[in-house]
C-alpha cells in the first residue's frame, strides 16, 4: 500500500501469521483485513462489507473465527493468525478444501475463504455437529451464489467422519 500522509499516527506490532512471525509498523486506523491483504499480500481474505455482517473477511485469531474487518491491525499484536492460505500443504488441498470441490460448495469463490475458516474453527472444536446446527454455525458468512447446499454438505461430511 502506498504511503499515508505524514501526520498519520502509526503503531508497531508483532504477530504470527500462518506460522511466521511478522513485525510491522502500520497506520493506527488500518483494519486487520486490509493489513493481511495489502501489507502481507494474503489476498485470500476478502472484504465484502466492512461492517461485520457478510463474513468474507473471516480468519482465525488464536483459533477463533473472527471478522477481521472489525479488528484493527494493531489488535493482532501478540496473537496467532491463520488465513485461508494456510490450509493447503504444497500442492495438496486439505480434506476440507477437497470436500468443498467434491460437493460443489463454491461458484464465484468470493465467500469460500470465509466458509473454510469458519468450518476449520468448527472442526477444531472436535464436537459432532448436526446438519441444522451447521446451518446456524455458518450463518455469519453469506453466499449469494450457491444456495448453501454444497457448502453445508461439504462441512457436514468433513466434520462427521471426514467422508471426503
Amino acid at each position, binding site marked *: 500500500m502506498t504511503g499515508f500522509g505524514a501526520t498519520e499516527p502509526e503503531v508497531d506490532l508483532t504477530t504470527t501469521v500462518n506460522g511466521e512471525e511478522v513485525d510491522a509498523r502500520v497506520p493506527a486506523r488500518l483494519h486487520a483485513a486490509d493489513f493481511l491483504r495489502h501489507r502481507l499480500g494474503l489476498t485470500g481474505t476478502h472484504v465484502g*462489507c466492512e461492517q461485520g455482517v457478510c463474513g468474507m473477511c473471516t480468519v482465525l485469531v488464536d483459533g477463533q473465527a473472527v471478522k477481521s474487518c472489525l479488528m484493527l491491525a494493531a489488535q493482532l499484536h501478540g496473537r496467532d493468525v491463520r488465513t485461508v492460505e494456510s490450509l*493447503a500443504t504444497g500442492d495438496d488441498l486439505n480434506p476440507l478444501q477437497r470436500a*468443498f*470441490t467434491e460437493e460443489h460448495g463454491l*461458484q464465484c469463490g468470493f465467500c469460500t475463504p470465509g466458509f473454510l475458516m469458519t468450518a476449520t474453527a468448527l472442526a477444531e472444536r472436535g464436537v459432532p455437529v448436526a446438519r441444522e446446527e451447521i446451518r446456524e454455525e455458518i450463518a455469519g458468512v*453469506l453466499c*449469494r451464489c450457491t444456495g448453501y447446499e454444497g457448502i453445508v454438505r461439504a462441512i457436514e461430511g468433513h466434520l462427521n467422519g471426514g467422508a471426503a
Partner: protein
Amino acid sequence: MTALQPAPARTEATALPIGISVPRKEDERLLRGDGRFTDDVQPAHLLEMAVARCPYPHARIVSIDTSAAEQVDGVRQILVGADVLARTEPLTVLRPVPGAPKLPYYALAQEVAAHEGQPVVSVVATSRHIAEDAIELIEISYEPLPHVTDTLAALEPDAPVIHPGELASNLLVANPEGAGDPVVRLAEADVVVTDRFHVNRVTGLPMEPRAVVAQWRPGARELTVHSSTQVPHLMRKQLAEVLRIDESSIRVSASDVGGGFGLKLGIYPEDVLAALHAMTLRRPVKWVEDRMEHFRATTHAREAVHDFTIGATADGRITAMTNTYATDLGAWNSGFGSAQLSSVVFTGPYRVTDGYVERRVTVTNKTPIGAYRGYGQPEVNFPIERLVDRLARRLGMDPLELRERNMLRSDELPWKAVSGAVYDSGDYVRCLHMAAEAVDYAGLRRAGRGPRPDGRLVGVGLSSFVERTGYASARFLARRGSQFGAHESVTLRANRSGGVDLYTGVSSIGQSSETAFAQVVCGVLGIGYPAVRVHAGDTLGSPLNTGAFASRTMIAAAGALRDASLAFREKTLRIAAFRLSDGGSAGPVDPADLDVVDGEVVHRTDPRRRLRLSEVFSIAILGQGLPPEEEPGLEVTAHFEPPDAAYSFGTAAAVVAVDPDTGDYDIERFVMVHDAGTAVNPKIVEGQVRGGLVQGFGAALGEELRYDPDSGQLVNGSMMDYFAPTAADVPPIELLHTEVPSPVTTFGVRGVGEVGTIPPGAAVANAICDALADLGVELTRLPLTPESVWQAIRNARTARG
C-alpha cells in the same frame, strides 16, 4: 502407460464427456485464496479514488468548493462535473428500450443530481483513507428539488418531471405488443379476473462489490482496466465511446469476479472516473466500492407494478391475457435499463392466442435499475400465476386442473406466443405432474387445510413457467437497438507442452464456464481435461464476444466450442497422419484412421502407430515437418450464433403452514421441477438452480429496498438492514429434472443460470392463499413478509365484516 488397444470409434453421441460432473477448473485457485479479484490487483505507485455522492434524491448543485480538500497531504486530483463534461460523453446504453430517448448520464452529475448516491465529485489520493478525509472537507451546496420515488406517483400529471430537457413526463417510453383481439375476448369471457400486483425493489448483492483499477501509458496510448465485470469486451466498447479514444487503446481484464447476477453488465460512472484520473495523472488508480456505496450506486432491480387481467370460459379455457405494467427505471438508464422480459413471457406456458402487453418505463428519483437474474421473468410470473389460482377458485376448479387444461402440450410446440416468442420444445405438463406428485398434491387435497393442533392452516401452491434463455438471433437484437450480438466466440491455440489454450471473453463470475467450456473441447477433441487451460475475461487475447449474461453463455458458446474443436482436431490429425506416414514401412496413414486419446494421436487399428500431442503441436508451431500445403500454426477461432432462443420450463410446488392469527408461515416443502435441456455438467446445473432459487426466495420473502416517500432517502441501504438469506434461512428444497434437448441449440442445452429466481414468489404466495382460502385472502405484493400476510388476513376479515 496406456495399454495398446484399438481406440474406440469416437462419435459425437458416445464420446462427449457432456453430462459428467468433472471437478471444476476454477476451484483450486479459489479454495487456496489464490483467486485474483480486482482488489487483489495492486500495481506499483497505486493511487486510490473515493467519490462524493449526492445525499438528496433530487437536487441542484449550486456550488462546489474543493479548496480545503486540495490542501490535504496526499491528495492528487479532484474532478467535478465540468471536468467530466469537457472530456467525456454520457454513459452509453447496451440494451436500450426501443424508442427511448437518450438521457445525458455523465460520470459526475452536471447541474442536477437525480438520485441519492449519484457521484458528484471524485478525489484521488495516495490512500483511500486520505481520499475519504478529503471528501469530508469538500463543500457542496445543494438546492433540494421536488422529488418522486414511488413508481406510480411518478406517472401522475402533477409529478415533478425528472428530465425536463428530454421528456415531457416521467414516462421514458411505452412499448405495446400483442396479437389477436384481447379486448373482444375479454368482453365475451364468462369470467374475468384482474388485479394490480406490486413487485418489490431488490438488489442482487454480489459478495464482491464493484471494483476497478485503471492504468494509462501515455506513450503507448494504452489504457489497462482491471474490472469486476461480466462483459469485458462490451466494457471496452463503452469506455472507448465515453472516453473518446479508440478501442485499440483499451484493454479490459476481469480475472475473477465475485458474483455478477446482471449487476456488472457494462460501465458505471466510477469506471469512467478512475480511467480519467489515471489518464491525467499517469498513475494507476483504484476504486473499490464500499458496501454503503453499493446500495446506492450499483443497480437495483425488479421494481414494477403490473395490472394483469385474464379472461376465461366457464369451463376453464383461458381466452385472453392482458398486462400493462410500469417498470421503474430509477433516475438514469443503466447499461441494461429496467427489465425487458416481462413482455416476452407474459402468457406463461399457456395456450393464449389473444393478448396484449404494454411496458411503461418510468423514471423516478432512485438508484438506476439494471439487469438482475431473471430480467423481468420472476416479476411477471407472480401476477400470472397468482391470477391463474384466483381464476380457478372463481371457476370452482382445482388450480392444478386449470393449469393442465391450458398448458401447451408437447405436440403443440414449437409455439409462437402472443409476444412473438417461439417456445421451442418441451413437456410442460409432465413437469407440472411431477411437481404435484412429488408434494403429494392429491394427498394434501384429501387431508384438507386443517387447522392442525397448533392452529396452523396448510396450503399448497404451484407456479409454472417458461423462461427465455439466450437471445432470438442478432436480427431480433438489431430490431431492438441492442449493442451486442447473439453469438459467442472462442479461440483454441495449441502449445508445445501438448496442451490447448482456450481464450474466451466470458469472464468467470461463478457460472463455471471455464469448466463447461473445457468439457466441450475435451469431448470433441479427445484431449484430456487437464490439458485444456482456459484464459477467461481478458480482451487482450480473446476474440470479440458478447459476454456472461442472459443465460446465454453456454447456449451460444457450445456451438463455437464445437466448431473450433472440430477444425482443430482435423488439422491435428492431418499433421499426425503425415508424420506417421513418413518413411514408415506400413504405408501412408489416412487421418480418418486416427483418433486423439488423451495426450496422444493413436491409429485406430494399429495402435503401435501413435504420436504424442506435444510432438504434433510442436510440428505445427515450428512449421517444420508439415504436410505440403498445410499452413503452419495450430490455432482456430470460431464464432457461433444459435438460430433462436431456447425456452426452459418447469413447475414449482410449495407446501406451507400458516398461522392465521399472526401471518407467520413456514415453507415445509419446496419442489422444483425444471428442464434445462442437455446438462453439460449436472452438478453445475444443480448449483445454478439452487443458487437462483435462494436468491428468488430472498426477493420473494424478505428483501426489499425501501425509500422514505417524504425524504426520498433509501431507508435500509446497508447489510445491517437489508437481509439476504443465510444458510439458516433457506427452506428445504427438492430438485427434479427432465431433460428434453432443445432443437435450436448445440447439444440441446438450455440456459440454467436464472431459472431459480422465477417461481418462488408465486408458488409460496399461492400456497399461503390456498391455506387461507376460507378467509378469501389474496396476496398481491412482494415480498411475502409475515406482516404483509397478517395485513392481508386483516383486510380480508374486514371486507367480510
